[in-house]
């Protein structure tokens, strides 16, 4: 399964970069989201995946009695998911706003800061 996941991560990265390289703003955001998902999955994979052993201490015990999945990558990814949501929502609203003002979705028409363009 690790190999499949590595392929998935590569696919997510590739599609993310490809979308970022498009001229459309919406595609740019989709690209960033895909790239974010790829990064999360990469961290998850590199923290070694373990099946069916969540890092939760069983009832009536103070310590783990058997093996458990590494909690550190999970904590990292949880933070990353939440932060990327902040980024995504801001970006989405920004696109909407920018579209309302300049009436275009094309990045190349947005590359001037001057108002007389």
């Amino acid at each position, binding site marked *: 399964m690790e190999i499949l*996941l590595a392929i998935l*991560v590569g696919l997510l990265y590739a*599609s993310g970069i490809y979308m*970022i390289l498009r001229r459309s703003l919406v595609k740019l955001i989709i690209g960033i989201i895909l790239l974010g998902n790829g990064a999360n999955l990469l961290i*998850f994979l590199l923290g070694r995946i373990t099946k069916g052993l969540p*890092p939760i201490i069983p009832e009536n015990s103070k310590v783990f009695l058997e093996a458990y999945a590494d909690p550190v990558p999970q904590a990292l990814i949880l933070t990353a998911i939440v932060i990327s*949501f902040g980024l995504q929502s801001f970006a989405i609203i920004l696109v909407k706003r920018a579209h309302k003002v300049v009436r275009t979705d094309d990045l190349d028409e947005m590359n001037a800061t001057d108002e007389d363009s």
Partner: protein
Amino acid sequence: MISAILLGFLFAILLVFAGKFFKGKFAVLSSLIPLGLFVYFLQFIPEIMEGNVVKESYNWVPSFGVNLGFTLDGLSLLFCLMITGIGFLVFAYTSVYLHHHKYLDRFYGYLSVFMAAMLGLVLSDNVISLFTFWELTSISSFFLIGFNNTQEASRKSALTALGITGLGGMFLLAGVIVLGNITGTFSIAEMLNMSPELIKGHEYYTVAVILLFGAAFTKSAQFPFHFWLPGAMKAPTPVSTYLHSATMVKAGIYLVMRFTPVLGGEEIWNTTLIVVGAVTMLYSAFHSLFRTDLKGVLAYSTISALGILMFLIGMGTTESFTAAAVFIIVHALYKATLFLTTGIIDHQTGTRDVTVLSGLRKVLMPVGIAAIIAAISSAGIPPTIGFLGKELTYEATMHAPIIATLLVVGIVITKILLLWAGFVAGIKPFQGSLPESLKDTKMPGPFMWVPPILLAVLSLVFGIMPFIIEGSLIKPVVSALGGESGEIHLALWHGFNTVFILSLVTIAVGTTLYFVLKPSAKLETAVGKLEAASPKSLMEKFNVGFTYLSSFWTRVFQNGYLRNYVFIIIFFLIGMVGYTMIGNTKFNIDPSILSNVSFYELVVFIIMCIAILFTVFTSSRLSAVVAMGVVGLTICLVFVFYSAPDLAMTQFSIDTLTVILFVLVLYRLPRYLKIQDHKMRIRDGILSLMFGGLIAVLALEVLSEPVNTEIGDFYAENSYIMAHGKNVVNVILVDFRGADTMIEISVLTIAAIGVFGLLKLRLKRTDRVQ
């Protein structure tokens, strides 16, 4: 010693506040600072004569091994005395020369910064601090050359000088770092204590030598870097006297002398110095024939003198070191005198054109006396010290290690031409009849004409009584260079020998040349035609080319298109990481650590692949967003399979929210854009696939390495015991790393405020694109 160096900087700072006070009639008081320093350094003479070295050291950046160490030996002392002695005269002279100038205080500020930096340069034991002071002299020189900043020529010359000497500064930095790597120390004293074979046998020896030469040749205006010096003559004459003749341009000479005992003696060292020095001295001595501006004549003869010094040091014998040490004094005395008298002529008559000036002895007699003595010293006619310098130079050249005969011919020709230059600058303006237009010329104030007289008198005194400088200055310098100081005996009369005959020939031919060849504007124009092939024009063409190159570079790489930046970054990332991975990638994943693939996992994998491809290739925005949601949800499933329930929950809710937000916001946007052409898409596709492949391979590589779970184990063991929580991931987030989570919440809050602000923003009608 450090206080002696700091004094100049402190005075410059003081001038910022008390400038008005000094600008008035108290300007001449500022010369007390160099005078005081001169006396301070004089009192070291007895100690240096005994062969001692005065040392001081302060910790500066001890972790890098950079100490602020200062050493005063014979070589430093000679330079310190020149810097402060001539500095004193120049400071006094300036008070009249730039009397009531609007920025006189600024001028003194630059001068004293320069003086302090120059003292620091010659006293530094640490090569890093030597470099720092070296750069400071370049910078203060830049400000002084461009002092008349309303003139375009001034500004241009200042920039050229800064460009060339700044380039040299970079050479110096690189050189001292290489040297530091070779020797393992930044202290010159420690380098001297090392066995020379260790340094000279090192594989980077040549690199260090070339870099240091780059620094010395640019600073000391050696061919082909000489052209900044004539340009630097745009500076007020006191500056030309001080920086561009007596002291700063000798910093390169100092550097070469300082490192002679460490690096010298090898063939590359000696031959390069001899060749470059000889070419420079001949080239610029010839050029001085074609100038009509007095300062131009002096500038080229200065370059020539610097060439002679390089040439002498390059020969590497005790004789040549002695000759170099004497010639430094000779040159400083006569050239400073000539510059000062030229300044007086310029100041009092308003012209420096040597074809116009004549007969000034009738109105500027004391100045004339100083100038004529200096001219005689420059010609090497007894009883001036110039004679001594010339004899020693000839003597040393005759015993040169390579092509001695040719070099003797070269040096004799140079000396003949220099004699001509000295006569033109020192005698010509005072000779003949006084033209009508110069009849009203008045004598300047004593602060202006006494300094050149003092220097001229010194030329005579040292010439008649060379024993004054023999023990106190020359011997310590020669021993600092690694020569046998016991052999030295300076005397005016050397006996009737080959050297004496050469001297006579020089004087006879030179004087004849002076009477035959008069400087004229015609000659100057004639040589101007060769300007197109001169190093200066080549440098200017190079500059223009460089400007084109950089604007081309900017157009290509900094063109403002986001995707170009991303493309280039990813491209080079792939190149570099890929290059490293080739050969290092092993692909030996132990199959036993891999988990099996169950049927439903395979299904999830396939769904995810299809969803990703659909997101990328669909032509409808809405389906792209939905497919993206599917990708998120399948990742959620992966989290469920592999023991991450918290992640699964978070991913699920966030993914849903994102899709909803996207759909709500975007359904009103126009049709999905498909702007780029086919070629672009293929290019980007290849790049993306390469990058994805790289990441996948990288991930597999990491998987084959052992994993460290120390941190995870710590949290797991202490989760309940210390934090009383059983869900370890939650405990990490809200307890162990609680502060981080709080900051994360504030980031989200800021994003929320931003979203709110954007939603509520109401634009004025005029701001909208209609």
